[in-house]
């Protein structure tokens, strides 16, 4: 029942959003964003799943079939798997940017509470 995966992705995304909204700790905000990212990975991979499917690989065909015969067989959606793959790498790099900003803010303000980052207050 893939619907459970969809709902799990929605739950994880909402928890990440709640973490961001509830806390002003910069590290917790980055963790919340990472949770939201992870929920997208779960959603993409779940959307790619098909019942009784194989991986989208055109090798090792059953006896009497050619690899091209696998093309019309039941496979998981390769396009969504591709989205997930690139999103993971970009997610790591973007998280590194957020953490660097958090470290710099912590060093400058001696705290990681966004409420105390007062330089831009009018």
């Amino acid at each position, binding site marked *: 029942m893939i619907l459970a995966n969809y709902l799990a992705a929605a739950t994880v995304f909402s928890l990440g959003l709640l973490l961001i909204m509830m806390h002003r700790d910069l590290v917790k905000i980055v963790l919340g964003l990472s949770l939201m990212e992870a929920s997208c990975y779960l959603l993409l991979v779940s959307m790619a799943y098909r019942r009784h499917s194989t991986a989208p690989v055109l090798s090792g065909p059953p006896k009497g079939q050619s690899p091209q015969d696998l093309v019309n067989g039941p496979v998981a959606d390769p396009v969504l798997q591709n989205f997930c*793959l690139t999103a993971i790498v970009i997610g790591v*790099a973007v998280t590194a940017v957020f953490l660097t900003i958090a470290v*710099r803010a912590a060093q400058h303000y001696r705290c990681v509470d966004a409420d105390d980052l007062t330089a831009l207050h009018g």
Partner: protein
Amino acid sequence: MTEQRHPDARPPHTLHRPVLASALMAAVATAFVLGLTGLPTEGAPLPAIARHAMQIALPKWGQQEVVSEIVYGSRGFDTFGETFLLLAAVLSVVVLSRGREPRAEYLGEATAGRREQAEIDPQDQADQGETEARSAERAEEAGTESAEGEETSGGPPPAADPDSIGLGTRAPERAAAMTVVVRGAARTSAVFLFVAGIYLAAWGFTPGGGFPGGAVLTGVALLLYGALGHQRINRLVRPNLLEPLELAGAIGIIVVGVLGLARAGSMFANFLRLAEPGSILAGGSEQLYSGAELVEVATGLTIAIFSLLGIGHDWAPDEQEPDA
């Protein structure tokens, strides 16, 4: 530290935040549930674009791995954009984390900052925490923990070579390397993991080729860093080596795209003769793209993570604590 609030900070509001956050979360969750329950389920037929990718993978690209065909073939131009998004993120980390690197000094921010600080508040002195942090950073940069005679943690200074530490020796507080068991396991597994990372990209049998391969190579660098300490991997993980490599990977991707445009009519189109599917040359110019992506991802992630790990301890003086 966080319990002491900045004098300019607004008063704490504790009630509105959970209420508003819960309301927003409930609204978003409801929208998600309504939207996601309408998505195709596991019994739905594949979208036409996915079926099309399956159909062209072998005849057009000679590629058995359909996800790799999409990453470097059908969606090659999108992957190009994502790769340079990765490069932009890495550059952001580098710019943010290396304020104290000598090559940035021509802008003179650090010098000007110190001068301005001295003019504005000549009485302001570094507290104990800042002194210790600066001392440890100077020692780390000098390659020895006992530099400048400012060691404050006591005990014997750690050996520069972790292998010279005997079995059963109590680890010093600032030990850079882990125990001999961990070091041996890391050295052994790093070789296999490195070969596996290259294999993932070279044979093109894995979804994404260079993307997961590059992530594995970054993992190998982190494994060695954790087990052996930063001094042992300084020769490998250094900006002078990794930054040109990363740019070489980026240039390689551009060259593959432009050659596809010039020789086959569109960016990242295949311009090489297709080899036997399943062989190392299968996939035509996709393999070149995947190899350049391997270099780009491995060096980019390594630069980003190690820039973050090696970020300068540029502590601002603490106004809340009395000087030691």
